[in-house]
């Protein structure tokens, strides 16, 4: 009986010791070094597409040209008019925003969504008899605004001019 009791006592203390050792090991890892963290995440959409629409209104043989930004992002625009020597092009806006560089007319403002350019006017200078023999073709190009830094717009390929910020 005494031997049994001693064995039980030994077992009891062995278990107690094991529990204490295990607890202390856990405690040492939990309390040895204090750390904290804070984490946040988020995302924002990128819209690279743009959409512009040219409006050509006839005024006799002449054309009144404006471009509207019908997309959701800023754009820059330019216009080229094919009509030989029969046409002169004039910026008819109250404020002059069209700038000619080579064969193209560049609008010197960023066109925000919903905005329309001022009027560019193509006046045909020929007799009525000649007027049936030619066509005034207007080409417009637009591009998404891309920045080289916060002070300069990046020019699309082949563009000789971009608006200054």
């Amino acid at each position, binding site marked *: 009986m005494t031997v049994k009791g001693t064995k039980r006592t030994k077992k009891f203390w062995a278990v107690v010791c094991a529990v204490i050792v295990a607890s*202390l090991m856990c405690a040492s890892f939990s309390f040895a070094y204090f750390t904290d*963290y*804070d984490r*946040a995440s988020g995302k924002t959409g990128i819209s690279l597409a743009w959409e512009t629409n040219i409006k050509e209104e006839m005024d006799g043989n002449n054309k009144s040209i404006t471009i509207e930004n019908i997309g959701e992002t800023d754009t820059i625009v330019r216009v080229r008019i094919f009509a030989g020597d029969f046409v002169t092009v004039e910026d008819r806006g109250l404020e002059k925003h069209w700038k000619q560089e080579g064969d193209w007319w560049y609008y010197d403002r960023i066109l925000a969504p919903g905005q329309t350019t001022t009027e560019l006017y193509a006046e045909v200078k020929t007799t009525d008899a000649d007027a049936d023999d030619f066509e005034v073709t207007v080409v417009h190009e637009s591009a998404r605004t*891309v920045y080289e830094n916060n002070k300069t717009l990046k020019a699309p390929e082949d563009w000789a001019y971009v608006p200054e910020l």
Partner: protein
Amino acid sequence: MNNRKNKKLKVLTALFGVASLVFAMLAIQSFASLRYGNSRDVDLEMGSIDVRLLENGNITPEVSKDKEGWLLRELNDQAVDPGYSYDEVIEARNTADQPEYVRVIVRKYWADEDNKRVDLDPALIKLGYKDADFNSDAWIINDAETTSEQTVYYMKKALPAKTDSPALFDRISADASLADAYTLKTSEDGKTITATYEYDGLHMGLDIEVQSIQHTSANEAITSAWGVTNVTVSDGTVSIKR
């Protein structure tokens, strides 16, 4: 005979108890800081450390440790222009009563509406500070922990109690070359050419985690808790072995 054994057992148990107590005290002491007041009393002070993330001066809400959708929310109402830099000032705030060492883990990614797009290049999301990639006066990169998915920055000095860190970044932008990644398609009548952009309609994502660790026994703490062996603190300055 049995009495002798029992006595031995009791003595061993007592010794073990004392050893355990000493061990526990040592473990606790590794965090305890000694503070000397104007009097000559010495206080053994226990406390916790606490760190929070700040974006553009705004501190994260205390709802939980992980805040999804909190970063970049100010940009959600505007169309992000490629190449244009937007304010993104990232700082850490020590809200506890004692200094702490701080590191920041930054992950950038592209995502569509539902999932991350690991096939797209996170390097096209640009974080920066003034004319540099980050504020290298106050922060240092640990290349050993940096991958294509994440960059780990350590603050060079301990962040004092109740203080904001120097900014790690102050701006974010989508690289201008995004506008060069497109394919052109001409309409059937040949009058309209449409560009389709690879990154159009995607989201640029940011995941930032700031971590802090006790300033006492910093070297042991950094090794044990953060699991890095090439970061050491000497005379209050963090250095990284390359």
